[in-house]
């Protein structure tokens, strides 16, 4: 995206595209092209300098970085980053029992290591990944639930903070992607009934806000079950978000499917491959590659959407922070606390989009 806009903004090099543009030429072309251009640059630069000065003044020079006494923060004119230091544990870990927080730290380490390894093409073989994921699932389960190896049992209603956000996000993607593929295939299936079911399902869920689906998961779904049967609330909510995610993702994948030329189907047919063989080995790999940029967008959106659980009272990082900010001693420093949460989301979102860009490069170079 950036490359396109910078192409438009900077005048195309005339003769030798590899020639280095000198500094003054660049300045003239991009900042001081005409009187109005220069005036605009000066005004914008002045505003920008004021803004950065304010950020520096508030966020660094006059800020309080460490104190346990909120009155110190009150006396200062700058930011109170101490609120994050002081409150980072309830913000990051929510309602989880205070003495057991080390388990969550360990869980996050295992989680991040597993995810990072799984994202690396070098490690893409099942003999490594299957044991890794089994180990990760079992150890994370043991750490989160407890009740084994002398760990105290912690119910899912006490889970919270960043680990909960991670679990919700992972669950959404792992459950949602296969559902999305099935829905997309269903929508393009030769069977009218399958098509009808998929279209109605996708379009009706895309037409309603996520909140209503969360309400269904929490308030209506238990009514669907026979008496005496219960499904864990966290699981219900994860599945709800996952299905919502799948409906959007299905439309993206359908776009990829539509981009596959007919000849590919016909070639597969002439090899007398079955529908599922064709889909699995020929159609889907291409369709998913084509729609990858849009798929990543929705995966990042899914991460942001996990924050919706505040409405039904799950203690993800945002809910936990909002609850912490009810503390009358520290309430005044909500800006710092919310900036911290925003930074966490920005960090993971940025990491995901960087990775997606890398995958696009790998695809372009034929590595995957």
């Amino acid at each position, binding site marked *: 995206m950036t490359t396109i806009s910078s192409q438009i903004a900077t005048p195309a090099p005339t003769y030798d595209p590899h020639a280095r543009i000198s500094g003054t030429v660049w300045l003239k072309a991009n900042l001081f092209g005409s009187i109005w251009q220069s005036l605009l640059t000066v005004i914008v630069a002045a505003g*920008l300098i004021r803004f950065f000065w304010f950020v520096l003044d508030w966020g660094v020079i006059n800020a309080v970085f460490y104190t346990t006494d909120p009155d110190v923060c009150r006396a200062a004119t700058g930011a109170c980053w101490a609120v994050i230091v002081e409150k980072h544990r309830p913000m990051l870990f929510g309602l989880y029992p205070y003495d057991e927080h080390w388990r969550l730290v360990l869980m996050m380490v295992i989680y991040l290591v597993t995810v990072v390894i799984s994202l690396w093409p070098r490690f893409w073989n099942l003999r490594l990944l299957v044991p890794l994921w089994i180990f990760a699932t079992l150890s994370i389960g043991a750490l989160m639930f407890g009740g084994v190896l002398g760990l105290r049992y912690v119910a899912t209603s006490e889970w919270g903070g960043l680990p909960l956000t991670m679990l919700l996000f992972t669950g959404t993607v792992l459950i949602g992607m296969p559902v999305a593929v099935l829905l997309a295939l269903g929508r393009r299936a030769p069977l009218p009934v399958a098509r009808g079911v998929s279209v109605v399902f996708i379009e009706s869920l895309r037409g309603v806000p996520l*909140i209503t689906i969360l309400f269904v998961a929490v308030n209506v779904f238990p*009514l669907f079950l026979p*008496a005496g049967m219960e499904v864990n609330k966290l699981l219900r909510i994860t599945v709800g978000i996952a299905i919502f995610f799948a409906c959007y993702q299905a439309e993206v994948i359908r776009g990829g499917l539509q981009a596959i030329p007919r000849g590919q189907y016909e070639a597969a047919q002439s090899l007398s491959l079955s529908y599922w063989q064709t889909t699995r080995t020929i159609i889907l790999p291409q369709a998913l590659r084509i729609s990858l940029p849009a798929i990543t967008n929705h995966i990042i959106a899914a991460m942001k959407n996990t924050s*919706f659980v505040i409405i039904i009272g799950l203690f993800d990082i945002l809910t936990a922070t909002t609850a912490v900010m009810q503390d009358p001693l520290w309430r005044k420093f909500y800006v710092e606390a919310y900036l911290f949460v925003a930074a966490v989301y920005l960090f993971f979102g940025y990491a995901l989009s960087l990775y997606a860009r890398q995958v696009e490069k790998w695809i372009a170079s034929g590595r995957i």
Partner: protein
Amino acid sequence: MTDASPGRSGARPARNLKDILYSESFRTVIYQVALAAAVALLGFYLYQNVIANLSRQNIATGFGFLDQVAQFEIGETLIAYSSRDTYGRALLVGLINTLTVSAAGIVVATVIGFSVGIARVSTNWLLQRIATAYVEIVRNIPVILQVIFWAAVIRNLPAPRQAIELWGLGFLSNRGLTFVMPVAHAAHVWMLAALVTGIVLAAAASHLAKRHREATGRYVDMLWPSIALIAGLPLLVWLVFGAPHAISYPQRQGFNFAGGATISPEFVALMAGISLYSSGFIAEIVRAGIQATPRGQVEAARSIALRPRFILRYVVLPQALRVIVPPLTSQYVSLIKNSSIAVVIGYPDLVNIGNTVMNQTGQAVEAIAVMMMVYLIISVVTSLLMNAYNRLVAIKER
């Protein structure tokens, strides 16, 4: 494209049972019957469970509750409502609030989004970078976080006594946004009617001018007549009514303000959150739209001495709008859906009131069904309008 499916052999007369069983068409029918039966059975099973569960918990079914007395107050109402009114009316109040905050949010998001989107393709490097940074930040922070943040900001604003003054036009305080407002007058309704009439007349006149041009080849410039019609008619009505110009200025009074008009803190926070979030996406849509017109076309238009106004009207806009409008509409729909996070900060929108109704009556299925239907209708109507518009602007090939 459905016929692109693999494995569909041509029609071959079936000879025996085995041939029938293995024939493509027979299997297709079987799969579909099985799928339809599975869906129907699942639906029936779930329905049975719901009925059994509801009767066991003594929860009423059906939409009769809409006529019962609601017995709760609503903070902000645009239509008359009291706690003696029905649940149905309460939900209507919520729907109107949803539409109001969404409409305001759409206007704000569009203005900011178009400005930032244009700045994104600016030739000024500094401006372009700032716009890019803005887009990346507002798009990647969850909308709920943004709404909660603005709600906290407004809650922590000074009380009306120390309210922040906005250039003598209003105040920003923890009571929300208070601003000057013309005193309501009968003329205002008629001015609005005159405005609509003016727009209709201007559109009709432009159409006639176009017909005239196509018939005779003579161009009639309708720009100024149109402006005169649209701006002049309301002005004329205002003068006819004796130019009522009473304006109510807000004044600090006790712990609150007197006079002026006030927008509640919840409304301001919700609108700020959802519109800033959407403005980032709109900016990207606008950027893509602007870049959809190749530079060569603008240069070509200039070389045949087309006026800048006409270059915009007949060369750039038709192509840009074709790219901008479809995703813009879906962005508007998602803004309307995002307004449902009002429930987090206590703005009485449809979902918030629906939630209260659900908790009071226990009729979760019906209450949620009402909410979903309303949003579905909004989505469907929008996409119908969208398709109609697309047919209108689609490239007409001969």
